[in-house]
């Protein structure tokens, strides 16, 4: 797990702990402790469990999300809910005199308020997610599997692409697509001259550049090493070659600045494209494009 986001949430974390301590001091300050034998431990476990798990939810929220309105609303909502749950649990330990009985009367109100705030937060989260989905377009289609994402480029890996192609090949209506393979030239040489971490950075930039040159309906994945694979829906060979040529031109004009010397390094790439044919299997079409690409590279 990565806890780096936690450091950005100082305010929210102090609010959460503030809520815990207010609930604690209200209950134990106003009430009198019950006799040991009067405590119902089953209730303590049930109600306490809810409070603790709400705290765990707040934790996951804070380690996963950067600060912002949605995070704020969700955390505040959960905190209110947790406030009620805590009061409910502390109830089991203390007994309120008549003057403080109001506390147990109102203990469910913060939970309701919290749920309202959270609902508003979830609505905003939904809107945020729609925006993020459009940002992810051309990186993924229909299916989200975060463990298939490549660490370096944050594109999906070859297995994801294989799954998508297999889905398309299932029905003849969707089987008119093209596959393009792109391979950087002399990437090994670049790695040797400037180091592997610079090579990784270059791959990341190139993948951004590839995405920028694709249509909304296309998908790009990292195949292996410095090889990328594109899936172009409803595309004939001519158009596929044109799109690949545009990417090649874009990469050719990318003046990548190295970290050590700051000099501009230019790159070229080689590509091969082919369309799906009837009776194609995933491996047969990928193999065909790969062989073509290797011929281009050798020739």
């Amino acid at each position, binding site marked *: 797990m990565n806890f780096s986001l936690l450091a950005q949430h100082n305010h929210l974390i102090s609010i959460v702990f503030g809520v815990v301590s207010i609930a604690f001091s209200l209950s134990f300050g106003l009430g009198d402790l019950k006799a040991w034998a009067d405590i119902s431990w089953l209730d303590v476990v049930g109600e306490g469990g809810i409070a603790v798990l709400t705290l765990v939810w707040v934790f996951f929220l804070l380690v996963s999300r950067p600060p912002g309105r949605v995070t704020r609303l969700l955390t505040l909502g959960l905190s209110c809910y947790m406030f009620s749950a805590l009061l409910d649990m502390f109830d089991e330990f203390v007994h309120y005199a008549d003057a403080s009985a109001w506390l147990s009367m109102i203990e469910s109100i913060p939970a309701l308020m919290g749920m309202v705030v959270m609902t508003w937060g979830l609505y905003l989260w939904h809107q945020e997610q729609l925006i993020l989905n459009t940002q992810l377009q051309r990186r993924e289609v229909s299916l989200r599997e975060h463990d298939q994402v*490549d660490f370096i480029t944050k594109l999906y*890996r070859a*297995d994801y692409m294989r799954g998508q192609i297999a889905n398309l090949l299932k029905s003849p209506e969707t089987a008119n697509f093209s596959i393009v393979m792109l391979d950087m030239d002399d990437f090994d040489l670049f790695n*040797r001259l400037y180091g592997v971490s610079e090579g*990784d950075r270059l791959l990341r930039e190139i993948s951004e550049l590839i995405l920028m040159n694709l249509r909304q309906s296309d998908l790009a994945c990292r195949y*292996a*090493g410095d090889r990328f694979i594109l899936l172009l829906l409803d595309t004939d060979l001519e158009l596929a070659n044109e799109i690949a040529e545009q990417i090649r031109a874009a990469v050719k004009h990318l003046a990548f600045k190295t970290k050590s010397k700051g000099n501009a390094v230019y790159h070229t790439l080689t590509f091969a494209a082919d369309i799906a044919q009837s009776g194609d299997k995933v491996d047969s079409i*990928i193999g065909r494009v*790969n062989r073509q690409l290797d011929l281009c590279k*050798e020739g």
Partner: protein
Amino acid sequence: MLRQYLCCDEKFFPAHQLAASLIDLAISHGVDRHKLLRSTGIFYEDIKSGTATLTAQQLLKLVNQAQQLMPGYDCAFQLGRRIFPSNYGAISNAVQHSRNLGEALKLLSLFHLKICPFIYGHIYQDNNKCHLILNDALGCGEQFKFLIEAYSTALVSASKLIFGKRIPFHFNFPYPCPSYIQEYEENLGQRICFSQPILSISFDKKWLKEPFPYHSNSLKTHAIHQLKLGPQQGFLEAVCFCLRHKYSHTLQETAKLFALSPATFKRKLKQHGCSFQELQDQLRKQQAVYWLQLQGLNNEESAMKMKFNDIPNFRRAVKRWTGLTPSQLRLK
């Protein structure tokens, strides 16, 4: 006379070589350093000191952990690309200053412990092909596949670096096609076969004479001089050497050559993850594949080469070793 050999629990491998490359690679892919090194007995300070040495067992454990912790399938292949030319010292120099590919491979097979310790190879030639038949030198167990991937990639990337172009190596792997076939294609090329009876790499014989651009006899001789210190072969390799050259036939005879009691010898074999019978079978299997598949001899000739008096007996033995009959093997 048995050459000095290395066991999997002897400290020998400089920590700043393979281990350092692997640790760097894993860390750059987001792996936690402490998790990676946990229970390997390797300390990050050792790597930086440049003087610490590790055992084969420690390296294998590290490989296992890196493989499990690193996301994606390219760990072995990325590692392979970093092996040559790295800080392996004399062996890198000797290879780089060789006269041609044939000489470089010969040096590698002699001094493989210095750069590719887990795998050793024999070079066979027929009329137009050269075959490298590869074996486990130190008992790698489940890590053998990872190491095959890494060192195959290293061979391809090193030859590309030296010649400036890819040499058409044909790879035969003894295991079924993995799901991440794209890494094989990208790093080793398209000439790859899976589910083969033995592990081998073949290429056109003409490449043996392909001259190296940095050839220098004096630099090479100097490097070889430095290489001659210390053990040159892994324990399993040493046992197979005795069997192959018929210095010994039984476990007792071989133990005697190693100056060990049969019980200790057996225990040592077990420590390297195999038994005497397994090694014997593996050797016979490779001989059978060599005569039948690579040399294309018929059953009678092959049986005679392998000292079988009886053809049906030979057929049965081949079937037991490889799962294929001699005629199927010849067609493969």
